[in-house]
Structure formats: C-alpha cells, structure tokens
C-alpha cells in the first residue's frame, strides 16, 4: 500500500482510544480501525497510575490492530492537561538586502526568531503557530513575500506544557514498544476536526469538554489567537453528583448520562429518578431538580472559565462564527442552550468533518480530538514528503485553510 497509514492515540481520562486512518483520493480521511478501552490510571488528562495506564494503552492498541488488520509500530499522540497554556511571542528581523524586498529566507529567519522563546526549564514547547506578519508599521500581514520594508516581524503563538507530564504520557506509549511519531495538543486537534474554513474566517472558539480536561482553541481573524486547557471535565460532574446525592461513582455516572442536563429543566423539576437497591444500600429516589442543579452549576462554571479567558484576551467580540463544542460532555442535554446563554454567541456541537468510515467515529463529538490528530498527522506526513524544508507551507496549509 503506498497511501500513508496513520494511527492516532489518545490517553483520555475516560477512554483510551486509538484510530487507524488512511488518506483517500478525495482528501477525506478514511477510518479503517478503532480500539477503545475504559481508562484507568488517568486523572485530569494526566497519568497518575503508570501500570494501569500502560495496560489500557496496550488493550486499546490491540483492539485497533484487530479491528484495522494492521500492525501498529508508531502512533501520533494526543496530549492534554491543565498545565497546557499558550503565549504570543513577537520576533523581528531587519530586511538586509539592498532592494528592501522581503524574501523567503527573511520569512524563515523571522519565524525562527519568533519561535525562539525563553520558557522556564520545566516547560516544553508543543506547537509554534505563526499568527501574522508585520512589515514596518503595517500590522496583520498574511503573506509578506515580495513586499518591501525595512523591518519584518512575526507573531508566534507558542503552546507549551510541563515537560515531565508530557514525557510521562510518551513513556506510557513507549512502554508497549510503540514509537511516538508526533504529539499534538488535544484542543488544537479538535479544532482541526470540527471547524470549517468559514468558521475560522469568522472567528470561533472550540471547546473540547473532555472527561478530565476542558481544552479550548480560539480562531480570530483567520489565525489561532489563543489556546489552553483547564483541569476540569466530565469526571468533576460525576464526582459532584456522587458527593451531592451521596451515591457511588458508577451510579452517578449513569445518572449523569441518562438524566443530566446543563440547564435546570423546569418541566422535570418535580420528577424523581429511582436508584436501584444495591449491595446494602436501600432503594431510594433522587429529585431531578437536585441533579440538574449540580450539573448545571458545574457546566456553567466550566464554560465561564473559558469565557473569562476570552474576555481577558479581548477576543469575545471577534467570534462571529460562535462556539463549537466537542468532547464527551458535548452530549449533555441542553449544553448548547447553556453555552449560548453563557457566551451570548451562536453555538453548536461539532462533529468531525471530512471523515468517512466507522459511523461512531464520524458522528460523535468525543472523537473530534482523535480524528483531528489523524488528520494533522496525515497532513504533516504528506507535507513532509512534499516540501521537507518549508515549514511555512505546513503552517499555512494546516492552520489557515
């Protein structure tokens, strides 16, 4: 087979999943295999129990290998965690040649300068994404090649995380004798999977409501303006329910999935849900209004965390495309309504785009990050083949178009 195969792996807080994808002639991503294993040993997107995490990864990869009928040697890894954050770094270079015309090498040079950011030693750069160029006083230039000026600057979004945490995730994968070809931030992957070119043009925020973390990526003025992650997710909702209603975690999880709601539903206020009698616990009923109060408050708070970031970075008014939700918690009832209320923007649940193959993968918002990773991996592999040297090309292709 001459078409490149790609394996994306996500060690999530709820599920460890692996998908196998291949590039189709029409540019779509074809999913040919899927392996999933309930996650153990991961909290808030980070490894807390190494051995359990390794066992889950082994199982997920085995299932994917069976399902896709391939042998997996290397994976593209999705990473997340509350430690991941971003900053914008500006680099400038003088234009030296006599005609003051900006050449490709000037662009390479300025990007190199902007990329060279000094971070504390315990932090590791995950992505460097060029936002804009500036030629002298002219701000927001998309492609400066051929323009004239005396100074060229570039704004680079640097997404970075804690080195040891990232290393630990990679180490888990290496423990099952599989190579990690590349790592990418889950929020970025989700954005790649669910946003259309128009969304990016108009400005959008993608919020990946995962089990352990809530990742976000903001597109404004056709560039990635901000990205980050909070260590709060669906696990917290389950925990809140368990603590609030004094029921076991498993029961809380079931209640959340079947009856949880991001808004308190007036119609269901007086209804009750029966909890089955279980090992020593007597049968009892919980009020739907209590359940909704707990889930609503948590979801509202979580979305407000992202809103606060947008307000602080002054981006809330640049989001004509609105809010796109992904991740498992995007399944929660009334989540779109709540997000519209919190942000005052149009909102929708994002499904992975441009994918074919297994129906579960192409339909569910929880697959956004892993499908995005597969696409990201494919594109960067193809790109690497085509123009090994020009990093600019990759960035333009992946993050702009």
């Amino acid at each position, binding site marked *: 087979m001459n078409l490149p195969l790609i394996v994306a792996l996500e060690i999530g807080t709820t599920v460890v999943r692996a998908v196998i994808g291949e590039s189709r002639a029409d540019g779509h991503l074809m999913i040919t295999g899927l392996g999933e294993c309930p996650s153990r040993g991961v*909290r*808030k997107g980070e490894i*807390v129990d190494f051995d359990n995490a390794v066992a889950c990864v082994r199982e997920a990869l085995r299932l994917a290998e069976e399902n896709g009928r391939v042998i997996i040697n290397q994976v593209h890894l999705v990473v997340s965690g*509350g430690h991941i954050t971003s900053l914008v770094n500006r680099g400038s270079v003088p234009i030296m040649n006599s005609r003051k015309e900006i050449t490709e090498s000037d662009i390479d040079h300025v990007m190199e300068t902007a990329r060279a950011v000094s971070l504390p030693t315990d932090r590791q750069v995950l992505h460097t994404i060029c936002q804009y160029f500036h030629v002298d006083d002219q701000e927001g230039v998309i492609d400066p090649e051929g323009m004239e000026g005396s100074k060229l600057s570039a704004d680079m979004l640097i997404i970075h995380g804690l080195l040891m945490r990232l290393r630990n995730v990679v180490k888990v994968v290496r423990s099952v004798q599989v190579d990690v070809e590349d790592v990418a931030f889950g929020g970025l992957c989700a954005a790649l999977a669910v946003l259309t070119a128009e969304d990016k043009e108009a400005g959008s925020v993608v919020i990946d409501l995962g089990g352990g973390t809530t990742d976000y990526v903001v597109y404004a003025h056709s560039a990635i303006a901000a990205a980050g992650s*909070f*260590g*709060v997710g669906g*696990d*917290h909702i389950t*925990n*809140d329910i*368990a*603590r*609030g*209603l004094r029921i076991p*975690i498993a029961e809380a999880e079931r209640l959340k999935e079947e009856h949880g709601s991001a808004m308190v539903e007036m119609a269901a206020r007086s209804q009750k849900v029966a909890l089955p009698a279980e090992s020593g616990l007597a049968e009892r009923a*919980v*009020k739907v*209004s*209590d359940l909704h*109060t*707990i889930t609503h*408050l*948590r979801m*509202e*708070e979580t979305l*407000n*965390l992202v809103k606060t970031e947008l307000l602080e970075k002054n981006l809330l008014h640049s989001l004509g495309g609105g809010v796109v939700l992904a991740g498992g918690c995007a399944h929660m009832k009334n989540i779109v309504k709540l997000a519209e209320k919190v942000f005052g923007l149009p909102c929708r649940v994002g499904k992975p785009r441009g994918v074919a193959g297994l129906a579960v993968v192409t339909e569910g918002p929880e697959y956004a990050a892993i499908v995005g990773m597969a696409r990201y991996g494919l594109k960067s592999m193809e790109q690497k083949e085509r123009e090994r040297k020009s990093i600019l090309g990759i960035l333009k292709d992946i993050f702009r178009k």
Partner: protein
Amino acid sequence: MLESADNVAVGGVTKGSRMVIVGLGGGGCNAVARMHAGWSDGPVVAAVNTDSQALSACRVPVRVQIGKGITQGLGAGGDPAVGKLAAEDDGDSLRELVSQADIVVIVAALGGGTGTGAAPIMARIAREQGAMTLCFATTPFDFEGELKTRHAEEGLRALRMQADVVITLPNQRLLELVETQTGLVDAFGKADVMLGVGVRSLWKLLSKAGIINLDFADLRHLVEHSGGVCSFGYGEGTGTAKASVAVSELMKSPLLDRGRILSQAGALMVSINGGPDLTLVDVQKIMSQLTAVARPGVKLFMGATVDEAWQSRLTLTVLAAESWTGEGDLPAPAAGFPEKAVEGSAPEARTGSKAPVSAGARAIQPTLNFDTGDKGRFKNTEPTLYAGEDLDIPTFVRRGIKLSFEK
C-alpha cells in the same frame, strides 16, 4: 446654595458617628432620591447638582446647587472640567454640608460632567473637614460610549486619590442582573437600587447597635489597610433556608463577579441583617460558607444586627477589599463576640460559633475539613486551582447551594 441647611446636623445617626450621604450629579441625585424615598429613618441625604431643574425635581431634604455662575443653572454638558469648576466655585456650601459629619458617603455616577468632576472635590472637602469619606461610584454601561468610559476612568483615578475608600459598581456587571426585556429606565433604576442597598446597609451597620457589633473603628481599619479599593456585594434570603439563599445570591451576584472577588479579597467586612428569628446557627452557617470560599488568612470583620420588623428575612452585605496591607493583629472584631451574643444562648452554642466567626488562622480548621470531605475521587490529585478556588470541590458546595433533600 443651601436650601435647608438646618437639616444637616440632625438625622438618625447614633453611636457617635454622624453620616451624611451626598448624591452628586444627575445619576447620584437620582440614586439618593430613590434611596431616601424608600427609607423611614436614616442618615442625612443631600443632593448636589449643577442643573437647577433636575435638582428641584429631586425629593431629598437637602439640596445644593453648585456652579450657578458657570452653567447658569444648566447641566455641566458632560464635561468633567465644568463639574470640577462648579464644585470649586461653591466649595463653601459643600464644606458647610459636611461640617458636622463623621462619615461622608458620596454617591456618583461617573462618566458625566457634574458627578465625575465634582466628586473628587467633594471628597477632598469632606476629608479636610475630618470626615471619613466613602464613595460609591458607578461606571457607565459599555453602550454609553468610549468617551464616557474614559471620563469615568479619569474620575475614578482622581477619586481614589481623594476619598478614603472607593467602592465601584460597574453598571456593565448589572446587565447580568437584569432580564433582556428590561427597559432602559429599569436598568438604570436597578443600578440605583443597588447603590441604595449598599449605602443603607453601611449606615445600618454603623449606626444600629448590633448583637455582634461592628463599628466605625472597624470600618476605618478596613479602609486604612485596603488600599482604597473595595467591591460591594449583596444577597438576600427569605423563608426557612434564608441563610443559604442569601449566601448563594451573594456568590452568584455579578457585583462580586460571581464570587471571584470574594475568593481573592484580602479583607472582608460582612454584615448580616436579620429579624428576631436570626439564630447563631444561621450566622455560623453563613460565615463557614464564606470562609470556605475566601482566601485562607483573609482578614475578616463581621457584624450582625437585628431588625424587629424583619420576620424570616435576612440580608447579607459584604465589602471586599482587594488587597490588605496591614500586618499584625486586628483590633479583634470577633473578640467581643461571645460576651455580646444574644442573651439566653447556650454556652456551647457560643463556643461552637466562635471558630468560623473569627478571622484568619482560627477559621482554617473547619475549612480544611470541608475541603477533603468533598473532593471525593480527586482527593489524591493535584488540585485544580483557579482564582483562589479549588475546582475539585463541587461547584454547588462552593456556591453554598443547598440541595432539596438536605433541607
């Protein structure tokens, strides 16, 4: 000119502190008029404006027109410089207005001419007269335009230099309080009501003998160490669960940025206002919920008053100072508490409520229990901290919201 200066020295101010409330400019006058209309007793209320027509429409006991020679009885036309000149011109009348006062509360809507320009002058005059000067200032809605916002910012800066403490109420935050269908008049009215509540509770706190006393010295102490920037929050509850309702309303209030300011504050002044049915358990419940949210080691002042007419009703007012510069011990606001507690309360109730009421280190113990007990499956993970809150603790617990089956 003073229209009825004889009212200045009187007023229902007790406990040795006289308070004068001065509304400045159109917005300030509207606010004090509304306040005054709702009160049967209270401190002296005065309105100060350049616009004679607006002033005469303002139903308060004392009215002072300023800048007659400058604006010919018209408004300041949105120019703070005119407001400033007007106040300087009639400095004598303003001085007379506050000459007998221990506390001067200035109420102004910043962004316009008179309020923005005259408020810093008024504050300076009041301080020169030896009064402690507090200023409640609203800042404009975003839709009122950039110019107004800029004026307000400049006014606020000047005010912070002159007044002992400035309590800002961003109108924009009030937008979250009102329904989308709310009319313009109602929106501004809501701002006035909020101002009224703040001033009223402050007055009550300082002038009524409380079961747990909070006095002028405490307020002065808070003001002196707060760096002059305070936020104000308010919650009200009725019925059997009034304490929890009041706390959750306070936490949800956009005035304190949904509890965020509370969790970041360096010092808090908490005033609990209840009816005869206010119990020590209520007080304890409120204070333990607040200390659970607040920063560990926060300087806490608290007071409780009882209003005979308030059956099963409770209001909670909080002044939150963003920073705290004081060191060492406070004049121990809680030290006198057990002695002053309601007569007939059992000794064990006293000791029981002592811990959460006291400030700082003394409150840490119950807070700690609270945390570990509620983290559940996140007990052994690194806590997710955000703006001083531990997000691993259920949101409803941090917001102090009671579930129905617990009631």
